[in-house]
């Protein structure tokens, strides 16, 4: 089972792509790229300046690593794993360069000018960027597990396949990631109310 993914008939395209079949390459990319773009949008936010670039680079890497794909999982999940890493690397780079906040979907200046119910407007538009911010603070393997589960809606078995980790390890990472996420979210100005509301 995959979230919104096609059956893995993509596997059958791999030998043809490796043999230089241009039609197979087009078909493979046409089916993969929308999924990689979705990964990129969810991890970075739809209006991040480099959403398309990350999807492009991830797809280029997938093609370059086809020889390493041994068919153990679905090709789509193999590609999603690469896209998650590419997008998370971009977020880490953003954070290191202290540029991420300027590109988030939240236009903080806009909140200063609104007149009606600023709390509601803030909650409506700022929650997802805030979740991404909190995820940035988690250790890499925990953030990866939670990105795959929370942002992308993968099951534990799928996360294990994508991350190349045992199922019990993934369960443990998710448990730890959720605990740490909650404790940070409780201190976050945007997420605090939501966490308390659900408590």
């Amino acid at each position, binding site marked *: 089972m995959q979230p919104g993914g096609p059956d893995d008939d993509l596997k059958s395209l791999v030998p043809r792509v490796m043999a230089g079949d241009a039609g197979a390459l087009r078909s493979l990319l046409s089916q993969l790229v929308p999924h990689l773009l979705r990964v990129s949008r969810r991890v970075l936010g739809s209006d991040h300046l480099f959403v398309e670039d990350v999807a492009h680079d991830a797809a280029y890497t997938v093609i370059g690593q086809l020889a390493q794909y041994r068919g153990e999982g679905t090709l789509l999940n193999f590609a999603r794993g690469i896209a998650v890493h590419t997008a998370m690397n971009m977020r880490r780079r953003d954070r290191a360069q202290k540029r991420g906040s300027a590109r988030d979907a939240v236009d903080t200046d806009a909140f200063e000018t609104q007149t009606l119910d600023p709390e509601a407007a803030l909650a409506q538009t700022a929650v997802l960027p805030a979740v991404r911010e909190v995820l940035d603070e988690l250790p890499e393997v925990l953030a990866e597990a939670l990105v795959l589960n929370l942002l992308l*809606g993968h099951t534990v078995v799928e996360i294990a396949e994508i991350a190349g980790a045992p199922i019990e390890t993934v369960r443990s990472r998710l448990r730890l990631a959720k605990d740490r996420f909650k404790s940070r979210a409780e201190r976050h100005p945007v997420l605090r109310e939501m966490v308390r509301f659900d408590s």
Partner: protein
Amino acid sequence: MTDALEDLVARARRDELTGPEQQRLDMLLDNSAEARLFHRLGRRFDGEDPAPPIADAASQAIVEALLKQLHDSRNQKRRTVPRWSWLIAAAALFVASLAGAVIGVQRLRSLPAPTPSATARSSVSPDTGRAIGRAQSSVVLPSAPSQEPATPSLSAELPLPRPASSSAAELLSAAGRARRSGQPTQALELLQTLRARYPNSPEASASEITLGKLELERGAAAAALGDFDGYLRHSPGGALTPEALWGRSQALTQLGKSAEAQQSLRELLQRFPSSPYTSAARAKLSVAVPARP
């Protein structure tokens, strides 16, 4: 299929649960505040884009750029074969020269009494030196094929294109990489090279969007606006029109022209209701003009 909470929540988000599974999930959600929190957050992310993902204009543009880039990369790989020949020939020349030098030195050593005239007469050393020099320069001068990986790798940064032989797609891609790695000057140079060398290419047209993003990133909103407007003017109905309209609204917002920015967002929503910017555009509009109860 396991009925662990994470799996039930994930499958519920895809509408895959059976009746009993849905009942079990409802019970778990009733009893766990944490489960409710993560379920609600997950649903919010799902609301950002359609499921399953659709081949929108942005993904189609990426596919076309990739196909061109991979095609050019393969052609370039084929063109490197003669360079390998050069490299092998140069290496052979180097080995032969080295062997000649060793033999010459051995012969010189075997002479009973080298005299200044003999040393002067012996052309081995200077010739060898020149030969080695030629061989070394021959090794270095051709573009080293090892710098052009046939296939990209995750860890290795993709190579920057050589100025003389880069295709438009390579230049555009290299500019994107330079921009992402925090080298805006290099990115600008690559984009200018692209536009000068391939003025009528689709990549030159797309470069207006890239330039606009670059200008936005460094806070030059007026220049960015000019780039996005340039794309809309030069490529009416182009595949990157949603990106141009979105960028235009961001530039106008930075310039303090909020009314025009909102107009651009409204045009974006009207012309491209299922673009990736839809939810963000709606959110910005709703913030800018809050709905009155």
